[in-house]
């Protein structure tokens, strides 16, 4: 069986496998100190994920605290202007804290509570995941430290202010490139030191197993709602779903419930930065190679000697050298396709959406 056929014949919802892999991707590439904590986290999650009490707690917070469900909005003027497909927008920007990140944070904070961990840590790049983590920490009465590259702190001062207001401590990370990947390293170092009392809320579908699975599951609420909303608003299934991919949590969240609907094209959009040929981008699926970083095997931006290289995107939320392992696997299997859009094109779309629909989106 070729890789292309694999996507058609296997149950795409059956992954990761028991050892945490999506084909050759994913896995648990961490130091020994964390292995037991990852096993415990997986066991706890597996025992809670179908537990009616846990699910109703989660459901209640998503509804009353996050403000779900989020609208599926028919963008009429954008549709007319573009002259092609009928375009619907899934409005994750209308969630509490202004992004999809909180879907995952609520779920993981509930997990932390059930595991009896009084402290959470998180990494953040643009600050959205940091703000969402600080928010749920306040909501559940957990201590919270957020690791953030000193470059990002300088670029995203408003989100730093919000995190502090919410009672979190923002820890500047000055190692390496002083951005998201280094914040992730530093959060891993904290977790390795404080693993007994601390839960690490990874913000995307990357990291060691079980994170890619549990973040995807918590974000899948996006796709489940979209499926139901589209069916009642428009009828049937959409022809295609398009989502941006940095680490890939929002894309995985909306793709996942459609994986077995083979008529639905799944299109992930990476950040081409100054162009895929420039080297100044954040598009590992389009122009990277397979390697191991931050606990999983996936596509990465690295040089020929295996050193991770710095990424560039005008969107701070996509500025990450890796990508979730499930995306790597969906790419190889052909079930999803991944394209890239450069800074200019992103800015153009940003202006268009503002003018035509009165919606101020994130750049991604």
């Amino acid at each position, binding site marked *: 069986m070729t890789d292309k056929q694999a996507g058609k014949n296997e149950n795409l919802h059956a992954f990761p496998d028991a050892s945490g892999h999506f084909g050759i991707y994913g896995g648990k*590439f961490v130091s020994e100190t964390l292995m037991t904590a990852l096993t415990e986290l997986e066991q706890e999650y597996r025992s809670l994920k179908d537990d009616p009490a846990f699910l109703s707690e989660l459901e209640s917070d998503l509804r009353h605290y996050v403000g779900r469900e989020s609208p599926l909005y028919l963008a009429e003027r954008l549709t007319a202007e573009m002259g092609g497909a009928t375009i619907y927008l899934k409005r994750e920007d209308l969630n509490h804290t202004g992004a999809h990140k909180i879907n995952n944070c609520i779920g993981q904070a509930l997990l932390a509570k059930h595991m009896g961990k009084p402290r959470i840590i998180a990494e953040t790049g643009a600050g959205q995941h940091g703000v969402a983590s600080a928010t749920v920490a306040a909501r559940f009465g957990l201590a919270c430290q957020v690791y953030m590259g000193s470059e990002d702190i300088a670029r995203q001062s408003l989100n730093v202010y919000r995190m502090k207001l919410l009672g979190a401590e923002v820890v500047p990370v000055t190692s*390496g490139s002083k951005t998201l990947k280094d914040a992730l*390293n530093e959060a891993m170092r904290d977790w390795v*030191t404080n693993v007994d009392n601390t839960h690490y809320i990874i913000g995307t579908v990357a990291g060691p197993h079980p994170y890619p699975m549990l973040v995807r599951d918590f974000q899948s609420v996006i796709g489940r709602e979209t499926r139901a909303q589209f069916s009642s608003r428009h009828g049937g299934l959409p022809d295609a779903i398009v989502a941006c991919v940095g680490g890939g949590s929002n894309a995985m969240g909306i793709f996942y419930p459609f994986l077995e609907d083979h008529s639905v094209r799944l299109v992930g959009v990476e950040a081409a930065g100054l162009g895929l040929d420039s080297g100044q981008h954040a598009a590992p699926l389009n122009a990277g190679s397979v390697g191991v970083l931050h606990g999983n095997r996936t596509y990465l931006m690295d040089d020929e000697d295996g050193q991770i290289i710095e990424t560039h995107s005008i969107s701070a939320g996509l500025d990450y050298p890796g990508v979730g392992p499930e995306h790597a696997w969906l790419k190889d299997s052909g079930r999803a396709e991944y394209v890239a859009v450069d800074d200019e094109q992103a800015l153009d779309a940003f202006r268009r959406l503002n003018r035509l629909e009165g919606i101020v989106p994130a750049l991604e």
Partner: protein
Amino acid sequence: MGRLGSTFGALATDGRKALLAYVVAGDPEPETTVNLMHEMVSAGVDAIELGVPFSDPEAEGPVIQAAHERALAHHIRLRDCLDMVSRFRETDNETPVILMGYLNPIESMGYEAFAARSAQAGVDGMIIVNLPPEEAGVLMKSVHAHDLDLVYLLAPTTTDERAAMICKASRGFVYYVSLKGTTGAATIDVNDVASKLDRFRRFSSLPLLVGFGIKNGETAARVAGVSDGVVVGSAIVDLMARNRDDPVGLNRSVVGLVTEIRQAMDAGR
């Protein structure tokens, strides 16, 4: 028998404990490393752990992170580390050298090429920090085919079930990470180390070495008293950082520390 086996065998015959020293290849200058390896051996080090620089050394504390960054500023690559081992072997064919690093540079070189070139350079084994045995199957085949030892880590959080699996997979020795934390963290609790090692000892007949948190002769001697040997890393790398603009002072201070630790360990036997 390989160099690791003969070294541990000779130490056991003499009733002495092993002293391993860790430096990052190319820190602070590419010219520093090979000479310093020889100097440390003369001062009583039994084996060298040579750190392979990586852009994202997620298990390291600030001292060793900075060493990786200094080495990377000189563009030290995995193949440069192997060249250093070859040069070391020109005049020392006895002292074991173990590479310590992260998986991605090895993935880039390719597992088989990595194993073949390591063996050719005179490397004896490797510790890959972010590669637990569960993920190591393919690499392990290549490494073992070239008679190299893949050394695995035990941690304070390791369960008995995992310890049995890790000790079975490990070759050469088993490395106990004495602290929950990164390299260079707080000083260790020797009694706690002793009780953990008692628990792990029944899973392996290989030497059990202890690293993380060993900063001076006194701690090294006490830890050596309950184990088969110690690994000293951050304390050495810290001295190197302080003396990075003074090559003579750098060698003198590192040799001074190694000598102190060696004497304390031998006095305590």
